[in-house]
């Protein structure tokens, strides 16, 4: 009786011992990407674009890399940092993901940063755009952009292109203040003057009084940064007040003129000059194919958030190829650092020191092509690093 029990125990141990490696081997067959993006709420279009772009990439390149099957686990954080943190934790601990990715807004990316450091899991930021993000964890890699990249460039460009007096209108929150500071520094260094500086409350329904103030300040141009959704309201009221006919140009970082919203703004947006890393009208063969397939699958054109997601999943694919299937965080991260490739937006690379993206920034003007509004690129600044970090 006693013997019987012991043999049973031994048998169980043997069974467990042999089963464990099999289970482990099976786990290694899939490579899991935890994608945390806002799919509902005010930032939902960010999440939807990223999700769409990743689906498109996987459809084109297959779901097997270096012998591993790629599995994307999508979580909707509604751009609430508390959710982001909880979901990142669940993905890392329960689902044992190899990479966390996405992150629609800066606070969300920052909330997940300590978890990435602790668990040694690479965190691929595909949307959020303030400079500090990559400094918060050595495991963060970014494939989107930084606001300083576009805002400094438009500042330099404006100073060199006959714009002397600028009035600024920015939303009073972190990204708005980032954009304003970066622009101001470069524009005034180039000899320009800021004649009026207005910070609009984030929950501002009516731009009328601020626009009237802009009109009375009679600047050569207005520098504008408002959250994507408000851009349309802003442009409409800009035209309503006759500012489009008063010779005051609108300039800014390209977020305001996202391809996603551009057409709904109407002709008021014509002639707006912005600096940004992506336009759906970027004239490369790769981008033309990207835009065409995206339109075919999802019925609308991709915006810059879609490109951030497309490049983010590309980075993960290529890193896995480079490590030959090794999935630990440090190997993946080492593979990602310094990687360079051709993106729909143009040539890009990951800065090995800051893990931030290095990319060309284009100056674009809104024009009508075949009855639709597009940001048409007409000048280019090569391989721009994030100016928010170069001081160090």
């Amino acid at each position, binding site marked *: 009786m006693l013997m019987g029990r012991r043999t049973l125990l031994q048998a169980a141990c043997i069974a467990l011992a042999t089963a464990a490696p099999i289970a482990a081997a099976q786990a290694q067959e899939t490579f899991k990407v935890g994608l945390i993006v806002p799919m*509902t*709420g*005010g930032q*939902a*279009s960010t999440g939807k674009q990223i999700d769409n772009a990743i689906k498109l990439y996987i459809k084109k390149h297959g779901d097997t890399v270096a012998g591993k099957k790629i599995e994307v686990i999508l979580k909707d954080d509604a751009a609430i940092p508390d959710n982001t943190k909880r979901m990142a934790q669940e993905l890392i601990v329960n689902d044992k993901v190899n990479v966390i990715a996405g992150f629609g807004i800066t606070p969300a990316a920052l909330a997940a940063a300590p978890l990435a450091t602790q668990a040694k899991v690479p965190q691929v930021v595909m949307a959020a755009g303030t400079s500090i993000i990559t400094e918060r964890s050595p495991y963060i890699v970014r494939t989107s952009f930084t606001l300083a990249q576009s805002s400094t460039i438009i500042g330099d460009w404006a100073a060199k292109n006959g714009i002397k007096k600028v009035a600024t209108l920015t939303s009073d929150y972190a990204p708005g203040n980032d954009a304003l500071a970066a622009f101001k520094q470069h524009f005034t260094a180039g000899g320009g003057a800021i004649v009026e500086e*207005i*910070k*609009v*409350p984030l*929950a*501002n*329904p*009516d731009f*009328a*009084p*601020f626009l*009237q*103030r802009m009109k*009375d300040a009679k600047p050569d141009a207005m520098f504008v940064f408002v959250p994507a*959704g*408000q851009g*349309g*309201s802003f442009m*409409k*009221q800009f*035209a*309503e*007040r*006759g500012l489009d006919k008063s010779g005051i140009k609108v300039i800014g970082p390209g977020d305001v003129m996202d391809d*996603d*919203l551009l057409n*709904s*703004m*109407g002709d008021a947006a014509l002639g707006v000059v912005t600096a940004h890393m992506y336009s759906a009208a970027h004239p490369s063969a790769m981008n033309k194919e990207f835009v065409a397939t995206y339109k075919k699958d999802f019925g609308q054109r991709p915006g810059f958030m879609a490109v951030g997601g497309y490049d983010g999943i590309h980075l993960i694919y290529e890193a896995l190829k480079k490590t030959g299937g090794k999935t630990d965080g440090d190997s993946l991260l080492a593979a990602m650092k310094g990687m360079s490739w051709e993106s729909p937006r143009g040539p890009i690379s990951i800065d090995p020191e800051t893990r931030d993206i290095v990319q060309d920034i284009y100056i674009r003007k809104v024009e009508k092509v075949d009855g639709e509004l597009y940001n048409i690129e007409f000048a280019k600044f090569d391989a721009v690093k994030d100016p928010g970090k170069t001081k160090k």
Partner: protein
Amino acid sequence: MTFLTILFDGVAYGMLLFVLACGLAVTLGLMNFVNLAHGAFAMAGGYVCAVLVNTSGWPFFAALPIAFLASALIGAVFERLLYRHLYDRSHLDQVLFSVGLVFMSVAAVDFIMGSSRIFIKLPDALQGQIDLFGIGIGRYRLMIIVICGLLTVALQLTLAKTRFGSRLRAAVDDPRVAAGLGINVPQVFALTFAFGCGLAGFGGALSAEILGLDPYFPLKFMIYFLIVVTVGGSSSITGPFLASLLLGIGDVAGKYYFPKLGPFVIYTIMIVILIWRPNGLFGRTAAR
């Protein structure tokens, strides 16, 4: 002249606030029901108008009355199914119920219409500004002032002079006696509630151009509706009307002349008025 342009913008903004909030003044003030879901009906009107104009190609002015009717209809259905059961409950119950309704409406609209901001395609005649003796008059804002002015007069006359108005006031002041006099109190309440919702929907359709229309509309503007009704006092239409004008002009002028203080001007006005007259400009202590 800039001063007059600012004044004009302020009046237009105030009028818009009034149309949006006067439905709430009717339900909150006259029916004594705390309906925080008022903005949800405004949003419904806005989306109905947007879909008719943008997708079905209706002219803007034809879609406006439909926005009113659609919101009124939704209001009537909700009143019969849900609100009616809460008339006798405490204000806390009413608040909790209607806030829940707001969140449901946000989620539902987000699901059906998507979360990006929607614009209504306006006729060319309503776009741009007219220059009148150096005052910049926005065409759309001028239209708002005209429509809202007419609406206010009609509303005031309905409540003060018509048979329905007196029945409503009787039903509110003492429902039992009113019922004894042969007034069908539930029917009067249902009609009034539907009408208040219709006004909200109408305001929602009008405001989409200036305030923007997205699924978060009811949450974003709840505070404005409440300020208007609080400052105006909720026992008449004149109170909220004057309050809307005061707040609209104060908000626009404050943002223009003191941009750094901008958003606080409207709250400062509210606080000062409430210290001076705790029941609002035209308040009276509640009848019951």
